[in-house]
């Protein structure tokens, strides 16, 4: 239960961090809150030669709103979001989701950027940011780039991050006052990863409607048919059209047969929550 031998650096600036990462290449891992990487190191499931600790980089803390986009520093913790220490532009969705992540001790250290970089499909932020159509700003040796979260995660625990790149910001479009969100989640117990979760965002002001299903081991699925229907026809889950759209989308998402009733219930509940 002790990590294998490794070097540790805590650079003072973002450019130092990028330089560090670039020179150490694939032998290196970035650590922020360490809530996933820490146990993996101790279990020796991850054995990087070098750790670059970005948790003290001031550029990656705090958040600001500009041009209708909230830019959240990658090292903002779940607890800071929960406690509204940063602006909320999601009509309460992000603080609500943050409050349901693991336990407070984890939320005190775990960061939103770290969670997305880890790309555990069951993580609350992955499903939520995809539903919000959020993007990431990455900084690397080649400069800065933006990428949708949905494109950033390529498979369970795999991302499109390049050598030397660091997630610096999570970019969340501001909800319009007419927006509604819905959420439903089933975990075996409080604080556990979700077996099934659904986040729905409908924002007529921005012409956005996204209903996203999150699961334990597959990447979140945007339920396209359902998303279109809730935008055009509303939130009546007793409607046959909507019910069959859910079935179609679950089939497209290749949901395990034994989990179908659970996922359908979670999606329906999230849609009903839109109306609440």
């Amino acid at each position, binding site marked *: *239960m*002790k*990590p*294998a*031998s490794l070097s540790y650096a805590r650079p003072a600036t973002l450019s130092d961090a990028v330089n560090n990462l670039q020179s150490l290449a694939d032998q290196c891992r970035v650590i922020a809150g360490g809530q996933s990487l820490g*146990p993996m190191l*101790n*279990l*020796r499931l991850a054995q990087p030669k070098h750790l670059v600790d970005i948790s003290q980089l001031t550029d990656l803390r705090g958040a600001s709103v500009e041009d209708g986009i909230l830019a959240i520093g990658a090292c903002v913790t779940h607890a800071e979001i929960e406690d509204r220490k940063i602006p909320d532009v999601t009509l309460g969705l992000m603080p609500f989701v943050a409050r349901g992540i693991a336990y407070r001790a984890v939320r005190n250290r775990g960061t939103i950027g770290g969670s997305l970089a880890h790309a555990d499909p069951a993580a609350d932020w992955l499903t939520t940011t995809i539903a919000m159509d959020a993007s990431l700003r990455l900084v690397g040796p080649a400069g800065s780039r933006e990428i949708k979260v949905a494109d950033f995660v390529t498979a369970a625990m795999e991302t499109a991050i390049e050598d030397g790149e660091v997630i610096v910001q999570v970019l969340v479009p501001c909800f319009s006052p007419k927006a509604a969100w819905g959420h439903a989640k*089933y975990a*075996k*117990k*409080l*604080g*556990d*990863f979700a*077996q*099934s979760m659904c986040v729905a965002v409908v924002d007529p002001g921005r012409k956005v409607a996204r209903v996203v299903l999150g699961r334990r081991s597959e990447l979140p699925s945007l339920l396209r048919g359902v998303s279109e229907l809730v935008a055009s026809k509303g939130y009546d889950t007793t409607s046959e059209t909507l019910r069959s759209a859910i079935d179609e989308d679950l089939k497209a998402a290749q949901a395990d047969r*034994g*989990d179908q*009733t*659970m996922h*359908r*219930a*979670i999606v329906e509940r999230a849609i009903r929550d839109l109306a609440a």
Partner: protein
Amino acid sequence: MMHAAFVRSPHAHARILSVRKPRDFAAQVYAAEDLTGVARMRSTAKLPGFKPSDWPILAAGKVRHAGEPIAMAIGSTPAEAEDIAGLVEVDFEALRPVVTMADALKKTPPFVHDDWGDNILVDIKLEGGDLAGAKANAVHIVERTFRMNRMHPLALEGRACLAHYDSRLDELVVHVAHQLPVPLQIGLSQVLGISQRRLRVIVPDVGASFGLKTYVESETVAVAWAAMKLRRPVRWIQDRYESLVCDANCRDYQCKIIGYADANGRVLGLECDVVVDSGAYSPWPWPAGIEGGLALGNIQGCYDIRALRGRAINVVSNKPAGQPFRGVARPLSCIGHEIVMDGIAEMAGIDPVEVRLRNFVQPEQMPYVSITKKTLDSGDYAAALKRAAELIDLPAVRARQKTHEPDGRLIGVGFASFYEQTAYGTGPFGYSAWGIELVPGMEPAIARLTGDGELILEVGSHSHGQGHETVFAQVAHEVLGIDPRKVAVRFGDTSSSPAGTGTYTSRSMVTTGGAIAEACRLLTKPLAVVGAHLLQCNESDVQIRDGRVHGPQGSVEFSEIGRAWYHHPEDLPANMDATGLTATAGHKAHDPGVFAYSAHAAVVAVDPEIGSVEVLDYAIVADCGTRVNPLLVEGQIIGGFSNGLGNALYEENTYDEFGQPTATTLADYTVPTAASMPDVKLDFMETPSPFSMFGIKGVGENGAIGPPASIMNAVNDALRPLGAAVFETPVSARRVRDAIARARAAGGS
């Protein structure tokens, strides 16, 4: 101090072809052949046909479960030890593993133990009464097959040991987290081949155990051996992965039960076929076969059932050893008799409470010897169940069931009545009848008055969180009237504590409590002699109460008596026994044990879409005879309930088809937390046992036995309108969904 880390098998079943030590660290790695003088552990039983196995400290020739230790690496830090362990290369020839019970029962290779010729550890049969008559007269026949999956005993604190060799005293000192200091001393001495005189086991505070820390585990033996070999202190602290993957496990039963009842729902007979997956080895001193014996030996529960045919096959598999865990097999027996009761209630159209009332052993029948030779000593099972039904307001729950819940969930109610045989050992169909290595017997206590009139109690049973320090002092108070704050309770060092068998089988309060009372009573003699002398009266005229010796005129404090003995023996009376103010006594509990009992009532809400189960209300009415410390009794029951809740709804050691564990961290092995716990309603009845001192009965396993049965019954009560039922623990959301899907496919609603 040096640190140990273990090289563990990645295979469930494989031949070890070679172990290659890293060249630079060869002297810091030890494999099986290096452990000179170390014997294998062999845990035996005299059950007919029982097959003992040799449990090697480090695997030799073959590995029999994933995680089995193969080599030990020693480093100057824990990380260095792990580094070195990581450099050891082992070549394997993978063998087909025995994973499922069906595999194990086939009687064809692969065999876990090559020389056995099958995978059957022991096959126990039990018969009594006129089963043919019961069958012939049966109007209602209920047949159920249920499964309790493998669990981990999971104490918050894992295992740990630190051994060093004391050259001055020529003894090996082992500090270790354990429940049984003296049995561990005996076991280590046998395996290490050194006399017990030279082996000192020190057990400090232990952060829970539940049965986990009761056997001689390989790592402790290896670390103790290394401390002797290296003449350096060696430490090993288990991590959670090692605990979940490598520790002995518990439960893992399958059972088919048939109940035969007459038209009134009176159960005339039972048939019960149990299979226990005992894992690869038998822990010392608990050969795995006792689980099957206990399952059958309590299968009739609190009910007056006079015919039985039972069979329990214990099989071995390529999984960690099976071991006793809080409740040991009784949760199986409890599900067995309680699902039969609910089944008969349904068939006969009788309320589940009523069907139990018709079948209970009645107070006037006690002491009542069951068909399995259990002497149910005292109590009123019917009163406990009625009270539990009141506490959950059964009529209100039944009324609520008829209404539609706004959230679509289904409400169910379930009961479990059972007894808990406590503090037994040498009685019929108990430990001695199984002929295991170590049978619990008498317990000693030493009571020593100090020079300032306070008391030190030294006892043989250990506490791993039960509050012995508090409750044993109360026993001294009961006899001597001494303020419990002036009583120190000491245990856990085989060099200084009197030798007892340890804490298990809910025995400490009955046996050690009895021994403390006996020792304190013996102590009253010198107290009276000295007290009378100081008071200038006859010994027959003094009384001991309130921590003083009272004479016809005046009284003296214990401190004055202590002062006389310790400081001024010249002032003591001529007839003073030279033994002085130290009294040693022991206590033997009633052979068949004393029988606590309980009624549990569960109200659950089942989400039929997700399959999740929420316990809305839970009541426990318990009778453990005289409650010495009600707060500790409550703690025992609530804590036990959390184990039972985990068993019922959450906890499962899962394995894939290759015998690889798939719940290797607490992210996958789901344990209930504080947030999972309902606010359990507790009530007590207090029927003193006629067979124990002060009428005390044990209470350690009570809370853990009932919940799998009561919650399973409640879930199935909720699912009844859908025609679905789940007979498998944990009753997971997936199992509930699958049961509903099966019922729908079969044409249910």
